[in-house]
C-alpha cells in the first residue's frame, strides 16, 4: 500500500487515488495546510502521536511545532484559543479526540464562537472536527452523535459526510469557509470504506445534499454511517420491486430543503434514518419542513428509523439493539411503501 500523503519530514505529496475515509480526511488537512499557512491544527495528541486515530499523522513532521499543536486536555481552551486565532486571520482546525468531548466546550462553541458574527460582525473561520458515532463498541462516552445540539445553534455549520470523496471535499470547503464549521467523522467509516478521490484540488459545497440512488416509490433520507445502511436496505427493497430514492444530507446545517422537497414531491413518501437518538433528531425537523411545504404531496406518514432514546450502551448485544440497521430500515420502508 502506498504511504499516505504527509508522512515523513520531506513528505512527497501523493494525493488522490483510492483512499480510506480516514486518509481522505488526512489529505484534506495536508493539502489545506500546504495551500495556506494560516491553517493550523490543534488538539490532544495530534502532533507527535498523529492523533488517537492517526488522522493527523505526518502533519507535525511536515508543518512543524507552530502549526501542529499538542494541547493540554482542555477542550474549552482549544476551542477558545482557536476562536481567538480566527479573529487574527488564522484558520485553525481543532480536533476533539473523540467527538463526545465536544460538549466540554459547549459554552465556548454555542456562546462565543457561534454568536460573534451576528453580534459584533466578527467572523470566526475555524473547523472543529473529530471521530463520532457508534457501532464500534465504544460505549456511552465514545460513541456520541452530538450533531443536533449544534444544529440548534444559529451561526454554526454542521457537516456529517459519508464517503471519502465528500469527506475530503467538504473538509476543504470547511477550512475555507468564513464561519465556524463542525465536521463530524463517523469512526465506523474510517477504515471500512474506500473511495476514489481526485488528484486535483476540489471542494464539495457545504449545504448541498446529494441523491445517492434514484427511485420513485419512496425517499429515504440519511447521512454518515446510516447512509450506507440505507443504501443496503434500498438494494434489498429493489429485489422486492420497491425503488427507494436515497438522499445523503451531508450537511445538516444549513439543511438542503430543496433536494429533500424535490425528492418527496416525486415519491410522496419519506423515511428518515439516523443514528442519532430519536427525540430531537433531524427527522423531526425534516418532518416539520415536509408538513409546512409538502403537505399535499404526502401519501403516507413520515417514518423514522433511529437509535433508541437511551445512552449508547456498551455490550455488543445492547448496542446492536440500540442502533438502526438495514433490516430495520427495510421493514419500515416496506411498511411505508404500502400506503
Amino acid at each position, binding site marked *: 500500500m502506498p504511504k499516505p500523503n504527509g508522512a515523513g519530514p520531506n513528505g512527497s505529496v501523493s494525493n488522490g487515488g483510492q483512499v480510506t475515509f480516514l486518509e481522505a480526511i488526512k489529505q484534506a488537512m495536508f493539502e489545506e495546510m500546504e495551500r495556506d499557512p494560516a491553517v493550523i491544527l490543534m488538539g490532544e495528541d495530534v502532533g507527535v502521536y498523529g492523533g*488517537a486515530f492517526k488522522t493527523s*499523522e505526518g502533519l507535525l513532521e511536515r*508543518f512543524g511545532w507552530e502549526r501542529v499543536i499538542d494541547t*493540554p486536555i482542555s477542550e474549552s481552551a482549544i476551542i477558545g484559543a482557536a476562536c481567538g486565532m480566527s479573529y487574527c486571520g488564522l484558520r485553525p482546525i481543532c480536533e476533539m479526540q473523540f467527538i463526545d468531548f465536544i460538549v466540554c466546550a459547549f459554552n465556548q462553541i454555542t456562546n462565543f464562537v457561534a454568536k460573534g458574527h451576528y453580534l459584533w460582525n466578527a467572523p470566526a473561520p475555524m473547523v472543529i472536527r473529530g471521530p463520532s458515532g457508534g457501532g464500534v463498541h465504544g460505549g456511552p462516552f465514545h460513541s456520541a452523535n452530538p450533531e443536533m445540539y449544534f444544529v440548534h445553534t444559529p451561526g454554526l455549520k454542521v457537516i456529517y459526510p459519508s464517503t471519502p470523496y465528500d469527506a475530503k471535499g467538504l473538509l476543504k470547503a470547511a477550512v475555507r469557509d468564513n464561519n465556524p464549521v463542525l465536521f463530524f467523522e463517523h*469512526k465506523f467509516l474510517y*477504515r*471500512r470504506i474506500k473511495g476514489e478521490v481526485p488528484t486535483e484540488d476540489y471542494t464539495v459545497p457545504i449545504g448541498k445534499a446529494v441523491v445517492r440512488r434514484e427511485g420513485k416509490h419512496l425517499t429515504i433520507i440519511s447521512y454518515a454511517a446510516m447512509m450506507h445502511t440505507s443504501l443496503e436496505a434500498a438494494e434489498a427493497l429493489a429485489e422486492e420491486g420497491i425503488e427507494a430514492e436515497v438522499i445523503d444530507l451531508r450537511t445538516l446545517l444549513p439543511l438542503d430543503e430543496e433536494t429533500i422537497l424535490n425528492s418527496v414531491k416525486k415519491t410522496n413518501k419519506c423515511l428518515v434514518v439516523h443514528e442519532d437518538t430519536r427525540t430531537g433528531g433531524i427527522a423531526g425537523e425534516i418532518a416539520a419542513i415536509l408538513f409546512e411545504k409538502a403537505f399535499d404531496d404526502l401519501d403516507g406518514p413520515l417514518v423514522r428509523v433511529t437509535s433508541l432514546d437511551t445512552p449508547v450502551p456498551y455490550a455488543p448485544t445492547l448496542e446492536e439493539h440500540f442502533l438502526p*440497521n438495514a433490516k430495520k430500515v427495510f421493514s419500515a420502508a416496506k411498511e411505508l411503501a404500502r400506503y
Partner: protein
Amino acid sequence: MKKELTRRQYMDLYYYMRLNRAVEDMMVKLFRQNKIVGGLYSSLGQEAISVGTAYALEKKDWLAPMIRNIGALLVKGVRPRDIFMQHMAKYDSPTKGKDGTSHFGDLDDLHIVSPISMLGDLIPVMTGVAMAGRYLGQKTVAMTWIGDGGSSTGVFHEGLNFAATQKAPFVLILENNLWAYSTPVRKQVPLENLADRAKAYGIDSYIVDGNDIVAVYSTAKEAVERARAGEGPILIEAKSFRRMGHAQHDPAEYVPKEMRAYWEARDPVALYERFLLGEKLLDAKNKEEIEDKIDTLLAAEREFAEHSPMPPPEFAETGVYCTGDDCHKIRAKWERPIAEVTPPRASVKGVWTVPGFGSGKGSGGANAPIHFGDTQPAEHAAGDDAKSANGGKPAAKMATKATSKKNVKPGTPSASKKARR
C-alpha cells in the same frame, strides 16, 4: 505613588480616569431617565485598574474588556458615544443594537475582542489571540480582565494553563474587588492573595494596589513588556473594592457600612489628584480645563447618542453568517517570512525529547494500531466491495455492519470488531 513617568503620561492617566468616571456618571443619569435598555454596571472606585492596565498597551496590542472595563475601552480609543449607544441599544452603536454594554469589539482597527457574559471565556480566547500574534510575527500582547468571582470558573484554569504551556504573550488582570455579586471573596477562593493562583501554572504574578494608578500602570507596563519579550503569560492581582452594588438594581446592603466607608476614603481619583497637586503636576487651572474639556466632549457625545435611532425590527434577521469575501475579506497580516512556517523550513523530526533520556519514536505509520473503535484494517474490511464515491455518485458500499444481516446471539460479541482499550 512614585514619580517616574513623563508629565504627558501622568496627565493622560488623569484624563482617562476622569473621563471614565464622567462617562459612567452620565450613564447613571441616562439610566435614571430610563434611556438605558438593560442593566447598568459600575466601575466606581476601580477606574485606576482599567485605565492603568490598558495604558500599558501599545496601539497594535489586543484587549478584551469585561463589563467594568469602560476605562480600558476609552484608553484604547473607543468614543464615549459608542459606549452610550451600546447601553441605549441604538442602531449607530458598534453592535447596531444586537448587544449592549461593553459587549463589542473591533478586529481591524482598535484590536478589541468583544466579551460575552460567561465569565472567564475570554481567557482562552485571548490566549489564542496572543498565540496568533506571535505566530504571525506581530510582537503583540493580549490582555484581558477577570473578577475574583470569575477566577473560580473552569475556563479560567483551562485558559491560563494553556497560555502557560504555550508561553503565550498574554497578561491577565485579576480585579479583586472583594465581592462577586453578593458573595464575599473568601467564599469564592480560599486564598488570601488570588495572585497565588499563578503558582499552579508556573507563571509569574504581581500584586498591586488597584487604587494607586501609578503603581497599576508601572506594574502592568513591566508585565506587558515581559510577556512581549517571550517570558510567557503573567497574572496581576489588583486589589480594590466594588463601591456600588453588582448593578444598578442592587443596593448591596450585604456590604458592611464600615467597609464601604474605608474604601470611599481611598478613592483612586481623589488619591491621584492629591498626588498630582502635591507634585505640582496639576493645578486648579489645568484641573478646570480638563473638566471643561470632558464636559464639552460628553455633552456632544450624549447628544449624538440620544439622536441615534433604534434598529429597524427586520435587522434582527441579518448577519448570522458571514457570506464570504463580500462580507469579510479574511487575511492574516504576516510580519515574518512565510517560509519559516511552510515546508521545507517548517518541517521537523516529530519526536519527543526527554532531557537526560534522548528521544522517543515518531508516529508509527499508516498501519499503527489506533484507538479502540476501529480495529479492522482497510484492506480487509473494504478491499473488494468499496467502489468509487466520485463526484457525488452513489457511495462506496461499505462492509456490512455485523448487525445488519447476522443474527447476533445475546452475549456473543461479533467477531470482526473487538474492542481494544
